[in-house]
């Protein structure tokens, strides 16, 4: 049987999509690709029908076995803070852990079981972590503070609404920013989140149909309150004596902020107040630039000592964050008029229990340190949308959507068998429909498009239109008209191309409308129909020609 170029193109792209989507070691994924292409060779050169069926069966079995046995084992480090001692030793995000202390780790259950058995709290333990190529040995009494997750079987990226995480959309208050100003804002915001210790952030500037510009921040694994406090406030930090500003946040005034060093940063004391609420005080030191230090000398020079408390000056150093008082510090008399480069910053956290208060203080300290290092955002931002989604619910939804896709597939298949009562025609429609969805997924994976819920709805709805087009091709080409086959298929393509352009026309405005939140839906729909018109529909036309000749 001679297969035309269009069918070859379809199968090559199908093979390529499989290689992109499946998360297999390169050699295996190459093998899968080759096997898919070999289907074509079998169809072209195999002489007898029996041989063809046997060979195709073998090929599918081989593909199945390869996929089954080469799925990677182990767990992957999905997030590690740059403060972590494990990070310092060389562990990085994306590394795959194969075993811990010679216990092989195949999945998340193995990982938590092995860690539980280690029983950290008592004394320093030796942990030997084997990765794919190297082994790290640590002595520690703390549970590893990085996050691991199962290795995904595919390279498909799902959106935050399915994988879990937080998303904020922010709008500069009372001002329209230029693209350059937006880019600055993106840089400062990502710096702030990175400094806070979040590495997995996606920040971009988006614009809508009315020309408004927004900042969209997407983060996996942070609670929305923290996100809100980190980016929802401008972070204009000022240290003032009376009305005179001594220093502000940012590297111009502050050259160093002590973090993660118990000698110069930490929580000092915790105590309950009358109502039983606990308060914990934190403190950390910062180094001022010479200029800021001189300003301090200049401002404190004229102060007198406090008559009530002779050890301190009459005015306090007020710490303000976005014009709200965080804390007021006494200034020792000995600092009067002196060029001081070391300043101690303090504040407090509260909670119902001592532990809550402690954690709150640590968290507040971390945020304040972040703001001091990264400086104030150039513009005041208003949070206009804040979403967070649970990975647990996301997994449930993903599972159900997959089953739903399968059902849609099945029902359409049954309808086709009932209507055409011809296995070859029905099968070719079904396989084409599958190829189309698969190639759409492949392209989305190739360009790392995050598939969110609307995007998947687009893919499933696209399966429906794809089948419609194929029905048109079949009905045109099998009509009993005297017009030749080529002309009839040409007419089918007129209808299909017309339908293609109307879908594109209908979906294009969605790319910009509503801050681009429904972009995924428009994208997969357009991608799906484009894959259809460029790759699968031409090949399907050829398949129908072959079936007609039989």
């Amino acid at each position, binding site marked *: 049987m001679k297969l035309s170029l269009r069918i070859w193109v379809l199968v090559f792209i199908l093979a390529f999509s499989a290689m992109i989507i499946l998360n297999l070691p390169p050699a295996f994924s190459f093998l899968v690709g080759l096997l898919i292409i070999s289907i074509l060779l079998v169809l072209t050169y195999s002489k007898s029908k029996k041989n063809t069926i046997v060979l195709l069966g073998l090929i599918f079995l081989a593909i199945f076995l390869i996929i089954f046995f080469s799925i990677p084992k182990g767990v992957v480090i999905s997030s590690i803070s740059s403060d972590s001692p494990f990070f310092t030793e060389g562990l990085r995000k994306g590394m795959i852990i194969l075993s811990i202390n010679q216990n092989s780790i195949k999945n998340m259950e193995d990982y938590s079981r092995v860690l539980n058995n280690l029983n950290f709290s008592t004394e320093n333990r030796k942990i030997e972590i084997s990765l794919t190529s190297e082994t790290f040995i640590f002595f520690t009494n703390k549970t590893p503070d990085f996050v691991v997750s199962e290795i995904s079987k595919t390279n498909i990226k799902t959106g935050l*609404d399915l994988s879990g995480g937080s998303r904020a959309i922010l709008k500069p208050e009372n001002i329209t920013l230029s693209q350059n100003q937006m880019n600055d804002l993106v840089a400062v915001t990502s710096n702030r989140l990175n400094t806070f210790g979040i590495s997995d952030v996606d920040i971009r500037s988006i614009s*809508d*149909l*009315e020309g408004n510009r927004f900042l969209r921040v997407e983060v996996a694994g942070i*609670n*929305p309150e923290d996100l809100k406090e980190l980016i929802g406030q401008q972070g204009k930090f000022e240290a003032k004596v009376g009305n005179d500003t001594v220093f502000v946040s940012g590297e111009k005034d502050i050259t160093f902020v002590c973090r993660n060093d118990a000698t110069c940063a930490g929580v000092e004391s915790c105590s309950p107040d009358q109502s039983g609420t606990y308060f914990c005080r934190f403190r950390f030191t910062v180094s001022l630039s010479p200029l800021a230090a001189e300003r301090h000398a200049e401002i404190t020079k004229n102060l007198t000592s406090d008559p009530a408390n002779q050890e301190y000056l009459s005015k306090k150093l007020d710490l303000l964050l976005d014009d709200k008082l965080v804390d007021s510090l006494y200034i020792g008399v000995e600092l009067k008029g002196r060029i001081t480069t070391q300043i101690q910053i303090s504040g407090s956290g509260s909670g119902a229990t001592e532990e809550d208060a402690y954690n709150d203080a640590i968290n507040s300290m971390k945020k304040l340190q972040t703001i001091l290092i990264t400086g104030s955002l150039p513009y005041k931002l*208003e*949070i*206009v*949308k*804040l*979403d*967070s*989604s*649970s*990975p*647990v619910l996301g997994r449930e*939804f993903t599972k*159900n*959507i997959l089953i*739903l896709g399968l*059902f849609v597939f099945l*029902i*359409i298949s049954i*309808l*086709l068998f009932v*209507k055409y009562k011809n296995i070859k025609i029905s099968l070719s429609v079904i396989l084409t429909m599958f190829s189309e969805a698969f190639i759409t997924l492949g392209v989305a994976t190739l360009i790392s498009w995050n598939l969110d819920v*609307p995007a998947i*709805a687009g893919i499933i*709805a696209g*399966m*429906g*239109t794809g*089948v*419609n*087009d194929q*029905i*048109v091709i079949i*009905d045109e080409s099998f009509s*009993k*008209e005297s*017009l030749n086959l080529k002309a009839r298929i040409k*007419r089918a393509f*007129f*209808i299909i191309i*017309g*339908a293609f352009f*109307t879908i*594109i*026309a*209908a*979906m*294009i*405005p*969605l790319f*910009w*409308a*509503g*801050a681009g939140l429904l972009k995924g839906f428009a994208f997969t*729909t357009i991608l799906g129909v484009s894959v259809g018109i460029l790759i699968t529909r031409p090949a399907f036309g050829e398949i129908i020609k072959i079936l007609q000749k039989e």
Partner: protein
Amino acid sequence: MTRVQIPTGAFSLILWGKSNFYQSFLLIKITKLYKVFLLFMEMDEPKEQESKPEKAEPSKKNKFNYDKHYKFLFLIPIIILVFSLAYIFSFYLKTGDILIKDVSLSGGTTITLTGDFLSSDLQKLEQDLKSKHNDVSFRKLTDLSSGDIIAFIIESQSDPEELKKSIQEISGYELSQENSNIEFTGSALSGNFYRQLILALIISFVLMSIVIFILFRSFIPSFAVIFAAFADIVMPLALIDYLGIKISTAGIAAFLMLIGYSVDTDILLTTRALKKQEGTLNQRIFGAFKTGIFMNLTALAAVLPAFFIITGIPDSFRQIFFILALGLLADILNTWLTNAGIIKWYCDKKGIK
């Protein structure tokens, strides 16, 4: 939101169980459609090779005579359309808007609870929340196959912090990243969303119209397609207003999709009627119908399992599919009665046989 009681033809006969209204509605609508389908099936299937175009009149007496009845058939969707438009207009007069916006379009918070919360007393949570926040509403997401509740959805115009605090106080469980989804849309953005999505809907309709005009390059056939697409949007919208369903951003996206999704059968019909040279006009229209109704069916088959079989899917997903399903049902009427009627009339005038 008080439901505006205006009878919309046959639609007002439909009885509603609030919890499973999607299913019950679609079932009733399908049985109705089946009758229309039967009507069509009685239509005289023109024989192949009925040589001379002058003898296009079907001969058998008992069979449905399309030439005689197409104007009457044409009236059915037109009446429904007029009712729908009138209903939407009266809805607009009463509520100030053509649809009911959910919190993603009007501003507010949606909290989806799962995990521990599902084992807590949801009824108590519902009652106590109602006494604290007067605009709060609830939905359950149930997996039809197992009957398990997958998620409990709470919507309110309150701030996420307030709503979260109340939920925690009443249920005694802490809301975390694991057991809840929280969506908040500020009123500044929601107004903007709504305006833009409506604008997008108009732009997409105009773009679609341009494509259709370029495709057929003749006014009346193009107008027929565009008119059918318009009716495909208006009829579902009227029904959704009547049912009191709140529309989310995803829902409006579905209306856009409908514009692109529903016109393929119209293009098929118009192309077959105008461009195919063999057979009589009735034969060509009927041929297009046989192909097209199967297209409608498969498209419906792609969206229906989301209501009958796998129901534990995100709400935005369901809403997209629900609106697509309504639109596809409306499209069956609008393509095969309205559009076919106009094309038939046009061809008769132009002498295309």
